[in-house]
């Protein structure tokens, strides 16, 4: 064997050894369990929220629906927007609903999500018709989609919450317009 062949054989041998030895060592560390070395290890963070309707409130001529959000998971989220409607007891849409302000919900915290109900003349007429039917309090539901930011992703999730609305108080407020 000449020197060139020897050098070639030696580099090949070293190269093969440096490729194989770490892998063989890795397999031995894991008890030669092939499945264990190729299986991804990942424990996703817990995502757990409790949503509780906490009531309707009338403030300076505006109607607001509040939702208490308890973040019981490990992931912080930001509620950025809402695309929802307020529905009457007969299932008819009464008023569009918007998120009053973005709310950040950190793990372990409880925050209040305030939804602003855009009650116009038509909605008031509808409420008045319920009152005319002899109803004093009605069940209303906010139903739609919430826009949430989670770890830099924009997530759209369905959202619904039921409330009891006192008709007399609501009708006394009159129509509301503007932001």
């Amino acid at each position, binding site marked *: 064997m000449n020197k060139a062949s020897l050098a070639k054989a030696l*580099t090949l041998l070293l190269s093969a050894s440096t490729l194989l030895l770490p892998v063989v060592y890795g397999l031995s560390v894991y008890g030669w369990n092939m499945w264990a070395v190729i299986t991804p290890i990942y424990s996703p963070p817990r995502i757990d929220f409790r949503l509780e309707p906490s009531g309707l409130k009338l403030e300076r001529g505006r109607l607001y629906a509040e939702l208490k959000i308890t973040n019981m998971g490990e992931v912080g989220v930001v509620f950025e927007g809402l695309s929802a409607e307020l529905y009457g007891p007969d299932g008819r849409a009464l008023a569009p609903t918007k998120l009053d302000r973005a709310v950040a919900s950190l793990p372990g915290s409880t925050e209040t999500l305030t939804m602003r109900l855009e009650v116009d003349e038509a909605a008031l007429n509808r409420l008045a018709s319920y009152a005319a039917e002899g109803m004093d309090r009605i069940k209303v539901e906010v139903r739609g989609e919430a826009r949430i930011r989670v770890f*830099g992703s924009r997530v759209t999730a369905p959202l619904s919450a039921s409330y009891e609305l006192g008709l007399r108080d609501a009708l006394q407020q009159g129509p509301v317009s503007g932001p």
Partner: protein
Amino acid sequence: MKVTRLLTLNYRLNTPGLASSILLLYTALSNSPWWRIAGGVGGEHTFSAEVSPFSIAVEVLGKPVTIPILFYLNMAARINILLAAVTTLVGSLLADKQWSKPLISLRGLVLPVLFLAGLSITLNLAKTLAGVSLPLIGGSIIEFTTSYGGLRVSAETPVEATLTQEYWVALAAGASSALARAIHGRIATKRRGATTT
């Protein structure tokens, strides 16, 4: 022939090989990624991956994803390239020796090519198996729908992927080693010819 003579300092030294070995040493000892991908906006990452043949770091929703064998494969690749750098250095310094040609390693060229091919295959697999279309270079938006607590939740994530400067350094090292290998034979021939005459 003039170029070869210039590149070999009058057939004494394989300078492209020398350059290649230095770049290979830098590449193998660097912990910087060759390819980076991140999904998310506003400085937050839904997922991120920093990949090179010597280290792989993947995070999904802020938690690391690890595959045990990858650590050992990365270690193997690092030692292998270090060895290639050392043999290329020795071969380049002893360019006039006839046996030095096999020491000029082409692994520096093979690795960046295989790396890109491996990435393309992995991304295609992700598209086929998980329906997630991730870019090799550039930006895109991935959309997916999942079920959470019986509710249909849809998500939209902007993704940005890039080959880093480290990759181009590794490719330069590879190209340099290919040039070194090409001119190495001429050095030995010339030296042999000079000795005979």
